[in-house]
């Protein structure tokens, strides 16, 4: 189908039809229902076919890095929630890990397990919502989104009970977590994990074999593996292109080395693969969650205040140095680069935002496809503008 379309485009290009054609420049966004926030794509269209696409961003820019360089380390934690506001727990984890690396803090086991549980729950939340929104971009009238949100609510309830806030969790602390998980909450999580496969099955029946979904997604927005690696694409998008790279496996940070799980790989790197890899990743996340919930043991949830810098969290002063911490956030590699000059505030604080860098290949993926495909491809990249614009 893709080949056929390319042929058609060529005919228009050659101008042999003798018709006086004109390209159409359309600004999709910043106020557009499916740019996932205030993102703009300046698209040049020939009929319905995308000739060029220029992403324009920065509408939500707040100079997050500058803010973080002017406040204490721990005060940055709530700001990281606002990066990718779907996945505050993984953002917290990345930031906490980076600072712990810098300050050489050992984290107790229970805290690590709690972090893993939280970030895997976050992955579930993110992936279901992304798939829902992707279908919305395709024109489904909110049903997948609302089904996804139905399940997401259950996870958010746990987040609220644990951290106090549904989305802006601000739950992790340097050296552990803010509060312990009670047995009650663990039971709640266990129930969610037990119920989730049924929902995934329902979701899959609703979408995976649906002919319209297949038509819209398969062989659309193909991202070859070489380009994906070259353009530093990470996360499910990279794995959908068939590259086996998951930081949970590569770095084995936290306690991920203690779990048995697999990495699903895509075949062609099109929108359908990106969608389906996310479905499979959720099933793997459930495996991790099951194991983590089994292995978690009572114990301290905060590191003992041994390093001097941890004595008083308000006066947290890591030693002079720098660190780059990265985690496999649901959207890709979320990295924090921090340079400390030994004072209360970081000298340099940089966020390597996955959805920002994943946008690099947007134009390459969209050219030659239709306008409707461009929207779907954007949806399949999975961007959050809080993270793109920072």
């Amino acid at each position, binding site marked *: 189908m893709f080949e056929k379309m390319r042929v058609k485009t060529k005919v228009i290009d050659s101008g042999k039809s003798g018709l006086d054609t004109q390209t*159409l420049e359309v600004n999709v966004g910043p106020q557009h229902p*499916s740019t996932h926030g205030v993102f703009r794509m300046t698209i040049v269209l020939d009929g319905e076919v995308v000739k060029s696409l220029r992403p324009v961003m920065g509408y939500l820019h707040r100079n997050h890095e500058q803010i973080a360089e002017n406040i204490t380390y721990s005060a940055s934690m709530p700001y990281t929630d606002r990066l990718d506001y779907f996945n505050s727990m993984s953002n917290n984890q990345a930031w906490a890990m980076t600072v712990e690396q810098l300050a050489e803090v050992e984290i107790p086991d229970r805290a690590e397990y709690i972090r893993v549980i939280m970030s895997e729950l976050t992955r579930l939340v993110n992936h279901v919502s992304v798939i829902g929104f992707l279908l919305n971009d395709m024109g489904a009238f909110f*049903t997948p989104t*609302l089904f996804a949100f139905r399940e997401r609510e259950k996870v958010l309830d746990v987040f609220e009970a644990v951290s106090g806030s549904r989305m802006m969790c601000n739950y992790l602390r340097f050296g552990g977590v803010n509060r312990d998980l009670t047995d009650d909450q663990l039971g709640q999580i266990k129930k969610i994990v037990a119920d989730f496969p049924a929902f995934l099955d329902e979701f899959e029946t609703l979408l995976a074999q649906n002919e*319209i979904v297949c038509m819209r997604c398969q062989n659309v927005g193909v991202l070859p593996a070489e380009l994906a690696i070259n353009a530093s694409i990470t996360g499910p998008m990279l794995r959908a292109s068939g590259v086996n790279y998951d930081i949970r496996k590569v770095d084995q940070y936290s306690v991920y080395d203690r779990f048995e799980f697999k990495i699903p790989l895509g075949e062609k790197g099109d929108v359908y693969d990106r969608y389906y890899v996310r479905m499979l990743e959720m099933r793997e996340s459930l495996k991790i969650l099951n194991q983590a919930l089994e292995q978690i043991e009572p114990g301290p949830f905060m590191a003992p205040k041994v390093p001097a810098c941890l004595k008083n969290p308000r006066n947290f002063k890591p030693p002079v140095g720098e660190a780059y911490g990265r985690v496999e956030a649901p959207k890709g590699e979320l990295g924090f680069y921090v340079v400390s000059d030994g004072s209360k505030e970081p000298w340099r604080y940089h966020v390597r935002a996955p959805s920002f860098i994943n946008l690099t290949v947007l134009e390459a993926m969209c050219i030659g496809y*239709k306008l*409707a495909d461009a929207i779907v491809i954007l949806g399949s990249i999975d961007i959050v503008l809080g993270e793109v614009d920072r």
Partner: protein
Amino acid sequence: MDQMFVNIKAALVGLSDKVFPDWVGVLVSIAVSIVAIALLGPLIMMYLTLIERKVVARMQNRIGPNRVGKYGLLQPLADGVKMLIKEDIVPRNADKVLHLLAPILIVAPALLVFAVLPFGRNMTAVDLNVGILFFAAISSIGTIGIFMAAWGSNNKFSVLGGMRSVAQMISYEIPMVMSVVPVLLAVGSLSTNAIVEAQADWHWFVFTPWGFLGCVIFFLCGVAECNRSPFDLAEAESEIIAGFHTEYSGMKFALFYMAEFMSAFTISGMTTTLFLGGWQGPLLPSWLWFFLKTYGLIFIMLWFRATLPRLRVDQLMALAWKFLLPLSLVNIVATCIWHFLSDEAFFTPAAFLVPLALLVFSYWGLMKLNQPYMPEKRVYPLVD
């Protein structure tokens, strides 16, 4: 009960006959029909919006509107008031005349089609002997209105929507008419009343293989004709904001909605008439049967909307030209075969099975021919 509305009309006409000369009676008879339709159309539209919101909400595990009145029954009124008092915005560079005319030109044909719908026994406003032709002709006029709206708005998204809409309407008109041909062959008349009469005693055409296929094709094309999901490309909100009515607000916007819902109703009504036996049915009054069947079909439309994402524009065209059109042509052949084999009886095994086999075979063949549109099976390796 069955003839309730007919009797009311007759009583009104009789009343005027007593007082006024004869020609007034004719005028009253016409006026009653017109008033009834002019009231029915918007009323149906208003409550369809409520039904749509309720049904889709239920499918999405929500309750739906329930604030205005019991079960939200007054919601359409509240919406109407809101629409009326909203500011009417006309873009500065818009073609003001076209911008104004377009919504009117869309609503008028949608309302006109009601004239040939047989709502019940003896309840067709105008029993045209070319009813089906009238229906096909009038319902395609809406395209002009849509394109006028698109062009008059002077908005790129609108133009894209308008172009999509024109291409879509013209393409779907053909399989739609082609799928009606078997019915005309079977009945031998273009009159809607005659078609319904021909389906008496459970001889609904949908129970025959060609009738079933024709019904599906007609209904799908009808859904495409009235721009409803999954064929709502002309107003695809996720791609081109709202398509041709991006630049409309207030009551003009409401008129587009009204046209869409009224044509959804007429399409369902026409499918009922052509294939589902119209107002034919046991026990219940005829008009109730008509509305039941029609709302059943409308429920399917809403069901589509709640389930399916929309097609892409080239896939939409491909579906019409490469799939529905050949299938509807084969369907005509199948009808002929059925006619020869059935020998005036409604059901004979041979007459049933041979066209069925033909249709299944051609369906399978078209699937093979349209391989690029078929879903691929993928294997996802799980690695460490």
